[in-house]
């Protein structure tokens, strides 16, 4: 017992005397919390839009005008040629281009099909998708109003959306034909005198567990996960291998202490540090982002404790198989990226192919993020996180056994 206590004391002394490690422990989480949730955001807030109006009619002007009432679109004005538009898109001056064909108005009144071309810069496919969606919504809305006002005249409008890559040569088209949006009145015969009111259905959405659809609610718990993982895995992986580098491990190995004592003396301090970081993270989450834990706090802490054991064990396993800090750093970095990208911390896992889901059964982070989201955002009880808890516990046992066994007191 005395042996383990002095090992813990030694570890803490070293941590608090290592300015670099201290700054990793204190500054890194602060920075992650203070910057990341405010900038990592899928919401599109600004879209630069330009128009080519070959029709110069009242309707085309009205449609262009209706974009001005939107907060998202910033109009970059009317352009005269396709060439000019290409140039602007190439230089990122505009994200979207809406082009009206000549005789647009005329076609509408004559009930002839006509096409509005929407071109989007699809370098950021999310932005392009959302942008064209908004454009459709606005034009569709206008057409509906227009139809209501001009029912006798049959007309149809179709919007083709065209997404072009920004690069010079490669341009791909996303649904050249677009979705044909025909007005309900389009099939009405021309001679109808009393038109029925167009049926309008409004869909209103309620978003459970994240009512404002606030992206921070997803990001902040994700950062909490990353924080715990970094402390657990990264710091410990570097710590043990450093003892190898400076040779102190030999001096310790010639003493009669047992290897489990040595590893325990290393795990307890980093486990405590990890829990402290997690606690600090929860406090920041509550007071800075106003996200409080919906579920049981002891349950959350308990599962975090188990998850930390997995990460600590993994860190020690990595450092006992690597020769120096550089090697272990690369291994941790590799695993960390795989863990994060597959785990669903920032991206939904639902869209992943089946094999990726299978790999995720080995990814402790994917289980932990489930737990975090369920307990913090949904307020889930133990029953709904039991599977994750069991899996993490099994992982903790396996990886720590591996770490103890792989740690060699005498080399071959």
């Amino acid at each position, binding site marked *: 017992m005395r042996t383990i206590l002095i090992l813990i004391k030694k570890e803490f002394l*070293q941590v608090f005397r290592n300015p670099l490690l201290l700054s990793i422990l204190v500054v890194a989480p602060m920075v992650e919390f203070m910057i990341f949730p405010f900038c990592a955001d899928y919401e599109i807030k600004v879209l630069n839009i330009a128009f080519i109006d070959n029709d110069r009619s009242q309707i085309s002007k009205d449609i262009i005008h209706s974009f001005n009432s939107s907060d998202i679109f910033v109009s970059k004005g009317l352009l005269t040629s396709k060439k000019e538009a290409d140039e602007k898109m190439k230089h990122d001056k505009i994200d979207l281009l809406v082009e009206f064909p000549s005789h647009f108005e005329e076609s509408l009144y004559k009930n002839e099909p006509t096409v509005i071309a929407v071109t989007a810069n699809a370098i950021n496919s999310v932005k392009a998708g959302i942008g064209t969606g908004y454009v459709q919504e606005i034009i569709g809305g206008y057409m509906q109003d227009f139809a209501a006002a001009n029912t006798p005249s049959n007309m149809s409008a179709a919007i083709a959306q065209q997404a072009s890559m920004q690069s010079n040569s490669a341009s791909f088209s996303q649904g050249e034909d677009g979705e044909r949006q025909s007005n309900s009145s389009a099939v009405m015969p021309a001679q109808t005198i009393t038109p029925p009111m167009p049926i309008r259905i409004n869909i209103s959405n309620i978003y459970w567990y994240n009512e404002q659809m606030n992206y921070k609610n997803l990001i902040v718990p994700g950062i909490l996960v990353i924080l715990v993982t970094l402390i657990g895995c990264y710091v410990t992986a570097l710590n043990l291998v450093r003892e190898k580098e400076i040779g102190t491990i*030999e*001096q310790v190995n010639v003493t009669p202490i047992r290897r489990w004592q040595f590893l325990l003396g290393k795990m307890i301090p980093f486990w405590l540090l990890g829990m402290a970081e997690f606690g600090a993270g929860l406090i920041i989450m509550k007071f800075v982002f106003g996200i409080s834990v919906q579920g049981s706090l002891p349950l959350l802490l308990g599962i975090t404790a188990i998850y930390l054991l997995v990460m600590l064990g993994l860190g020690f396993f990595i450092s006992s198989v690597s020769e120096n800090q550089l090697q272990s750093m690369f291994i941790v970095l590799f695993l960390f990226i795989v863990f994060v990208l597959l785990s669903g911390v920032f991206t939904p896992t639902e869209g992943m192919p089946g094999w990726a889901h299978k790999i995720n059964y080995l990814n402790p982070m994917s289980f932990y993020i489930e737990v975090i989201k369920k307990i913090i955002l949904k307020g889930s009880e133990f029953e709904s996180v039991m599977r994750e808890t069991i899996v993490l516990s099994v992982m903790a046992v396996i990886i720590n056994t591996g770490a103890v066994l792989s740690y060699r007191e*005498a*080399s071959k």
Partner: protein
Amino acid sequence: MSAISIRGVNKTYDGKVVALKDINLEVEEGEVFGLVGPDGAGKSTLFNILTTLLLPDAGDIRVFQMDVIRDYKAVRQIIGYLPGTFSLYPDLSVQENLDFFAVMYKSSIEENMNIIEPIWKQISPFKDRKAGKLSGGMKQKLALCCALIHRPRILFLDEPTTGVDPVSRKEFWDILKSIRQHDITVVVSTPYMDEATRCDRIALIQDGEIIGVNPPQTIIQNFKGHLYTFKSDDIFSLLQVMEQCPLRCNYYPYGEHCHVAFYEDMETAMPQFERFLEEHQQPHSEITAIQPSVEDCFIEIVKGKT
């Protein structure tokens, strides 16, 4: 009773590099035993095996009758080890390092203060300084304290004086002599032949083989040649000329001097040699006969031209 008994130890790294070849060695309890040999001779490998850090390919090694492989836990309790490179925690203070290793051995500083006192007196003024900030000599003294804190029965020192200045080296050896008073067997390795004379017995090691175990005086007495020394302005050209020397001799640079060990009747050989140098236009200082050092003996054994 023998403190260490080594029988037929072999060690090969990666199946290619032969580090130790059929080592047999006995170290008596209470002696200061030196392992002397150039870099790469296998000294550290042997030390790592003796201190239970490395497994041999074959052979039987016992430290106070205990097998270093099977009873490694018990062996660790009775050995002290000072590795070749400074291996204490540089970010812990002198006092903290000592406390740490005392607890690792389930011992305490007070309990064995009488052993480390002469050394501790020298480093205690710096006890709050970080170990990494100590001078080289002080680091070694602290490491020695840490290795002695549990009153080991045998102390292993792997090149303790490499990179240490001559004054500190002398001090260090004086400390080692004082350690023996506490019935601690000392096994020390060194590449410095001059330090070998301070051991009770030395083993000469070369290319993983032990080429002789004797007290230093015996080794020097066993020197077969007639050793002479002289100075030359151009050692390089002298050594080239010596290749053509018709006499049976070993020659090698020794500091600023050239040592030549003759295996001839010197009555006739010396005039012959002086004539040889003259013919080849090698100006030199007076050629004087000297007593061989351990280094001369080592070279004689290695070159084997007797």
